[in-house]
């Protein structure tokens, strides 16, 4: 499943369990899950300032519990109780808190640098267009801006500190006009807050499992919620951005009686949308999912 790459091995993608939901916040984790673990999840994130109810949502992605369980079962991801981990990390020692603040400062400094470079580039382009009269001045600015954040003041340890005065005003009065002065860093990630050992301590192992989710994950299928097709999963042979779903899958208990009307409906609806209806169950006497899962596909023949 995992491809051999030259890069150093990444830690396993981290799934945060928050209020019973399984969320992936890190975009790299999300892309790893999508690329290498055929799990795409559904985007659920939106901005509190500008909530949207359409389908154009962003990170985090939400996984269904059985999907998360299937990933953990295959050792492709780990689930962490995020609330407990945060509390433990914050309460453990004051050093962890200060370390986190330092990391935020680093992020902020990096952002400053990037912005300054971009502004400098723009200025250079503008100067070039104007006729190359002031070529020397814009070049001096990025150096000043990038040097300044490297020496932050130690006394300030509020999380949402405004840009330290040393950054802009000390080096050059011209930088104060640049947009980065009003630039505050929003807390985007608490990744650096939780040390790895604490993270490992709060890993969750009692995720409810779904045999069919494991089976589909194991078979390399992508799944999305199948509610609009009247099933539990829409099953894709590859990335949903590339393929249409081929199956609509429902999971049943091994001894559960399946009403004939359900099979007729599922088969009829699936065939109407050019898919096949899949029913699956796992035999508890034959070991563990996904090896013991049996699945049948049903199509409306219309003889």
């Amino acid at each position, binding site marked *: 499943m995992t491809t051999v790459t030259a890069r150093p091995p990444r830690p396993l993608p981290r799934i945060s369990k928050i209020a019973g939901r399984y969320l992936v916040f890190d975009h790299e984790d999300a892309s790893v899950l999508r690329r290498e673990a055929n799990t795409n999840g559904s985007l659920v994130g939106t901005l509190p300032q500008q909530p949207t109810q359409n389908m154009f949502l962003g990170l985090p992605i939400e996984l269904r519990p059985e999907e998360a369980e299937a990933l953990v079962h295959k050792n492709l991801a780990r689930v962490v109780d995020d609330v407990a981990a945060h509390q433990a990390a914050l309460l453990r020692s004051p050093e962890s808190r200060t370390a986190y603040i330092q990391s935020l400062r680093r992020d902020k400094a990096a952002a400053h640098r990037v912005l300054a470079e971009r502004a400098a580039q723009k200025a250079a382009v503008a100067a070039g267009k104007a006729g190359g009269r002031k070529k020397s001045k814009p070049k001096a600015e990025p150096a000043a801006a990038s040097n300044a954040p490297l020496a932050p003041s130690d006394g300030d340890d509020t999380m949402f500190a405004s840009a330290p005065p040393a950054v802009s005003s000390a080096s050059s009065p011209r930088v104060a006009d640049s947009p980065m002065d009003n630039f505050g860093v929003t807390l985007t990630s608490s990744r650096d807050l939780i040390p790895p050992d604490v993270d490992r301590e709060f890993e969750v192992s009692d995720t409810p499992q779904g045999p069919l989710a494991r089976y589909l994950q194991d078979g390399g299928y992508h799944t999305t919620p*199948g*509610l*609009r*097709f*009247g*099933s*539990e999963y829409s099953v894709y042979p590859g990335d949903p951005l590339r393929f249409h779903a081929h199956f609509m899958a*429902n999971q049943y208990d091994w001894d559960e009686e399946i009403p*004939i*009307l*359900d099979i*007729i*409906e*599922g088969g*009829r*609806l699936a065939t*109407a949308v050019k898919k096949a209806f899949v029913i699956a169950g796992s035999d508890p006497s034959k070991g563990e999912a996904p090896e013991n899962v049996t699945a049948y596909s049903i199509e409306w023949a219309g003889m």
Partner: protein
Amino acid sequence: MAETSTPKPAMASANNNPARERRPHEIYVQPAPIKTFPLPSFYPSNPLSFIQLAYAWIGQILSPPAAEPSIIHQGTWSVATTSVHIKDAQSMRALWEQGFYGKGNLSRSEPNWLKREEVRRGLQEGHVSEIHTVERREERIRAKWERARLEQENIRQTREREARQAEKRRAAGDADTPLKAHILAEPLAPVGPAEILALPNSAASLPGNLVNGFVKDGSSHGESSDDYSKTNGILDSSLETSDDTSSTEGPISTPVIPGLDRLKRRKSVRFSPTVASTTFDHADPPSPGHSTNPKQNESLSLVPQAGAGVLINKEHLQLMPEEALWLNFALGVLVVLDGSGTPLSTRALLNLFRQHSVFPPLTGPDDPAPLPDDDFLLHYVVYHHFRSLGWVPRAGIKFGVDWLLYNRGPVFDHAEFGLLVIPSYSDPWWQSSGKRKPQKTWQWFHSILRVLSHVMKSMVLVYVDVPPPHKFEQALESGLADALKLYKVREIMVKRWSSNRNR
């Protein structure tokens, strides 16, 4: 008014029919298999209507019509199919035409196998819905092929035109063209179905270069190019014709990709230039090329001429248990015989149907007695309810629902509603006994809603309030009618509402 000749139309489907085919409203005059004799109404403003009334009244007194039901049909209970079989041809027609009861075992619904067979053999001119359906399907397939052909033709013409225009521009040699020609010469992004199909399936099938799915260029003729033009007819022919019109091998419509000669496509859909047959008759073998014995086919097709005179009706009518009980209990026009030929009473019939509403049937001596919420009773209550209100309920298994409701009958209109029977245990006795209502998922709900809205029907949830067993048994002692009074039926219609579409 008394319709004296009503039993006759029941057998009117035979060959001695007059040339004109009867219209549906003539065939299906009676909505139920019993006759009614209403007196004409009296209008005080029109004194003559009193004479009419008096005439009809005296006529009915002097020669009273036969007691209804005048004709009692006979059916046989079949355990294997859990249905009641009607084998008499007249009864079959009568039950179908007077209320749309039952289903022909060899037909879709109306028992018309004999007629279909005669039409198929050319013995009779007529309209049979099954044949009509097959024809309509064939026509639809032909229309789809024609549409696809026209689309391809359009694409081809557009390409020719564009090639000609490009040629003209190049001949004119103005300053702007080089850029455009350059763009055209680039391998275009694969947008059409043919190009997408020509894409390699995986990285494994690529020998080295990324190929954009474009087929051979006319300028680089090799042995493999013939191969391609054979297998991929449509795209190639269009390219060739564009080459002909432009008469030069310019870079316009023929993007050359290095290494294409080496490319071997593992899998692709081939459009065969010769399509032997797109439509099939029902008598055709499953795969024409693999017909086991051609002589067998001939003998089959010869049968009609040989056995034309002795066509025996092999069909019987199947009544669902609910229909049989309605005809027996509510209308009294049916007697059901068990396997040994003895007629069953209404109570015996009810017990039999209740026992067979589950599989395996609860016929053994140790099996528990069915509760008042068994499948048969629930469905019968709903059937009885809607039949009494004048609707025509028919089995809805083909759409995944319990009943389909027709306004007048399947020959007149499509079913308007799909009914789902859901037991409701609102009585305190059920709550104390720990009975729970059926647990259904949203997926179940959505799939039914989608299937029904796809066939333009409305979904109706029919809740049946089930009485507690002791009350039911008590009422059943005094008769089935009293027991049925304990059930209550509530209907809730569900419609999918979308804010975008229902503005």
